């Protein structure tokens, strides 16, 4: 009980908890769940963008996209490492992903249908991610907070690149403008869902905020995202696909229409349009290449035997 009080005090004082420090089991479990979910999202998130790598319409865009996906893989690595400091192995985490026990962001279960989707993902999805994550740079668990500092910096860069790519389309040919608007139509609502269920239906939020694993509520973050994004869409000359969207002078925020939470929960349950494809791609990459990892282990073992001899 003393340890718990001391822990709570440190967290309340915005102190960082480090791997060797004592921590409540629920805190550890919550962190493992959250960090690994975040890591899985980075790795699964490579797939919808990777779908356009081989069709990127210029060499410069192809290089930008490849570098971006590589960054995401890098984020996955830092985050798996941060989770490992809490006493799980990467293999355990991957196994949980493949078996469906661990989740990843619902956003990656939507398909990328045109090149404009790549711009829209950078702008909206990375934009929403940053909104969610910026506070995590000061989260209470040290390794997670430090990983987030680096991740947020790279994601701001990705967001600007995505917006710029969409700007080119919005100022392009008729077909390109159509693509850009269509991408916004398809990605807008799923992006809003990235902030999670509404506050009155988000059971873990209060505890997470107390633990400084979260620093603002889902609805607060979502509103901030909407307020930031609407003027950006206007600058592109694109329309947000929400007839109820309107600036509210009284609140100094945008009011918006009702999110289809039924769809959200269906996607969380793994019923998203590309959910089966995404997880199958990850399982295939893992299982069909198992012989490579086995070979590397066998070789390392032989080598260390040789060196010991």
């Amino acid at each position, binding site marked *: 009980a003393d340890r718990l009080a001391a822990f709570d005090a440190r967290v309340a004082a915005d102190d960082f908890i480090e791997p060797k420090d004592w921590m409540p089991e629920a805190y550890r479990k919550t962190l493992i769940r959250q960090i690994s979910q975040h890591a899985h999202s980075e790795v699964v998130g490579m797939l919808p963008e990777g779908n356009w*790598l081989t069709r990127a319409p*210029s060499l410069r865009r192809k290089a930008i996209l*490849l570098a971006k996906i590589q960054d995401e*893989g890098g984020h996955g690595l830092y985050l798996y490492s941060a989770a490992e400091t809490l006493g799980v192995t990467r293999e355990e985490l991957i196994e949980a992903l493949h078996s469906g026990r661990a989740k990843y962001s619902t956003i990656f279960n939507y398909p990328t249908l045109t090149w404009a989707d790549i711009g829209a993902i950078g702008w909206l999805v990375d934009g929403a991610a940053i909104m969610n994550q910026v506070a995590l740079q000061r989260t209470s668990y040290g390794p997670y907070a430090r990983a987030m500092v680096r991740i947020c910096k790279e994601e701001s860069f990705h967001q600007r690149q995505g917006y710029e790519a969409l700007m080119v389309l919005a100022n392009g040919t008729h077909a390109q403008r159509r693509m850009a608007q269509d991408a916004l139509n398809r990605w807008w609502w799923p992006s809003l869902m990235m902030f999670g269920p509404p506050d009155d239906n988000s059971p873990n939020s209060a505890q997470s905020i107390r633990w400084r694993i979260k620093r603002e509520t889902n609805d607060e973050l979502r509103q901030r995202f909407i307020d930031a994004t609407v003027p950006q869409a206007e600058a592109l000359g694109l329309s947000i696909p929400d007839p109820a969207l309107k600036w509210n002078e009284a609140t100094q925020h945008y009011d918006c229409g009702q999110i289809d939470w039924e769809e959200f929960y269906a996607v969380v349950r793994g019923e998203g349009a590309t959910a089966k494809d995404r997880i199958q791609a990850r399982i295939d990459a893992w299982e069909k290449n198992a012989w490579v990892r086995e070979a590397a282990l066998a070789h390392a073992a032989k080598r260390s035997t040789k060196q010991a001899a």
Partner: protein
Amino acid sequence: MSQTFTLSPAELALRLGDDALILSHRLCEWCGHAPTLEVDLALSNIGLDLLGQAQFFLNYAGEMENAGRDADALAYHRDEHEFKNCLLTEQPNGDFARSIVRQFFFSAWQQLRFHELAKSGDATMAAIATKALKEIAYHVQFAAEWVVRLGDGTEESKCRVADGISWSWRFVDELFTGEDAALRPAWEARVRATLNEAGLDLPAPVRGITGGREGRHSEYLGHLLAEMQYVQRCHPNAQW
């Protein structure tokens, strides 16, 4: 068939640019599907380096051609028979062993070829080669280490890497046509050293398959280009 002796600088830039372009495309196909996250990142890294080389070489080829085509125009608006990459680079990824052997053979060749190119009287080509050599040193090392791991790993990995070698070996002759023939002994020595470390032998000579340098490709390139060029071909006058 061998036309290397009379190779114009523009033609050389096209060949080297197409090599890098096509192989980087193949590496893009691995993205998100590699054996580990670390390997995924490494393959992307090599792909990015090659994509950068492709841009330099193709832009320079376009400049020399002086017909208003830049690297993008050359990459996205040439037909298959105008591509001059060697056949090795367009071979399908196959399993990881095939991809790694392809990379090792190619990067080891590039290292020798660019070492010569860095001494070229053409300052632009020499500068591209010098910059690329730093990247290539890493590519060779990465691929060679994996050849050793696979050759000296499990029975299965040994079989697979041997299959990869016999797949790619048929396309080696093409790398050493014309004046590049002089590079072959050094290349074989480099490759032999790694294969021996992996417990493998250099394969017996086979009849080499050639044609890429003259624009006669394998059936694989057409499918690759259909995918790579589709958006540009559908929107010929758009900017991206």
